């Protein structure tokens, strides 16, 4: 009889060890909540504008030159016209910039600006920074894109 209890005790011990290991693994795994903010529409840094950034044709294709649309509205929701826009960016985890120099090439009306020459040459976390100057003032916004 005593030997069966020894087995059960050993079994319980092993089970406890397993629970411990699983708990440690779970706690050290990266959680999706801690990733970069992937929203495609947000307030600019100082709250002057609301900016939205979308690929013009809807999908992102790695390795292809694509045009995107940056839509700018005031906090009150009015389209921002005549904005001067600068574009920069890169991959924060690889310590390098963009493989191309995207530019705001066209104003399409209703606060929409075409940002052409965007190319993502690799998968991973990319950032695009926009400097925006318009009648309401100057502000900036950063969009995160993960491929």
């Amino acid at each position, binding site marked *: 009889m005593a030997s069966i209890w020894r*087995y*059960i005790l*050993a*079994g319980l011990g*092993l*089970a406890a*060890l*397993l629970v411990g*290991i*699983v708990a440690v693994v779970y706690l050290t795994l990266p959680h999706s909540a801690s990733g970069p903010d992937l929203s495609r529409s947000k307030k600019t840094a100082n709250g002057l504008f609301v900016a939205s950034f979308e690929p013009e044709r809807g999908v992102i294709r*790695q*390795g292809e*030159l694509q045009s995107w649309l940056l839509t700018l509205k005031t906090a009150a929701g009015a389209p921002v016209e005549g904005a001067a826009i600068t574009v920069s960016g890169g991959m924060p985890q*690889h*310590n*390098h*910039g*963009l*493989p*191309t*120099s*995207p*530019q705001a090439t066209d104003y399409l009306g209703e606060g929409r600006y075409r940002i*052409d*020459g965007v*190319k993502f*040459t*690799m*998968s*991973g976390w990319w950032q695009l920074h926009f400097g925006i100057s318009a009648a309401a003032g100057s502000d900036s916004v950063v969009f995160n894109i993960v491929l």
Partner: protein
Amino acid sequence: MSVACLVALAALALLGGCGEPQFSDAEKKTIASLALNTLPSLKPDTTNQYADVPAAAALGSTLFFDAGMSRGGTVSCSTCHKIDRQFQDDLPQAVGVGRTNRRTMPLAGVARNPWFFWDGRRDSLWAQALTPLENPLEQAGNRAAFAHYIKKRFGERYERIFGRLPDLSTAPANASPLGSDAEKAAWNAMPASQQDDINRVYANIGKAIAAFERSIEPEQTRFDRFAIDLATGAKPEGDAALSPEEILGLKLFIGKANCVTCHNGPRFTDGAFHNTGVPPVDGLPPDRGRVDAVAQVQADPFNCLGKFRDGDESACRELRFMVKDGPQIMRAYKTPSLRGAADRPPYMHAGQFSTLDEVVAHYSKAPPSVEGVSEVHPLDLSDRERAALVAFLKTLSD
């Protein structure tokens, strides 16, 4: 079986993973993206209206192999781009009329590049093809001599494709804006309309050679057969079955070793420029890579924004939106395709490494760049891991 044994087995299964060494869904997705069957069909080149004209490709093929297309008649494109050697020459630096400072690039899939040469100093395949023709270390010719040669040797074939050749009776035998002092003087003495006529013939030579080169495409390898089986859930048979070492190498390639960051897609290249800390070669002239190529491609009269382009300017977005400055282009070189790489040492832009083991050791160690900043970080791969990566790379050649 006793309770203790069952518990112990359960623990082993949990800790060690069950069954075959296989791939996660993310790994499977990456592997599928590298397979040759995902290579899209070749896009038309609107800057070259003859790109897909068979007669142009046929003339281009003649010119590619014709040593008459050089000063002295001894060097053709195929001198360095050898047809039986993946269109490269196995030398650390190419040798034409003289010795250059760069490794000859292979040509499989070349028409798919946005940029040409190791540093991207040309922006189209036809503009690229013109450059060695006048380089004194390569074919060492001059455009006036090429125009006369085309008229004499291939006049009828040329005219059937490109229309009437210009009257060259008053054009000097040798003249070029890039040649010797005498050739430059002869060029500058020509009326602008005659310069234009000769530049037009010269551009068409490049367009014919490019039309031929568009047919040179990568071929399926063991890796592709394995990847297709993995994607379809079939069990890889025969040589499509990778060995445990090759599978470890593949997992490292797309995982811990980060190779796939730049060597991505079915051609195993992102087509972009990176500083990876590859050392310069003693005795060669200073070489700063992409940073010096920007001004060259902008100044090239045969670039996409120049008047010899066919089609409209919308084809010129790569040139229009290129990165023109900044620290990241210092000593940056184009990511080469890895297809067939195992069969064509030496490696890097000036043949710095003589084996794949040396290449992998370089990336594992990741020394700093002599100028600019290397993008790669030390990996500290074990001997076994480095050997596995080399074993995997060989599956892109078999």
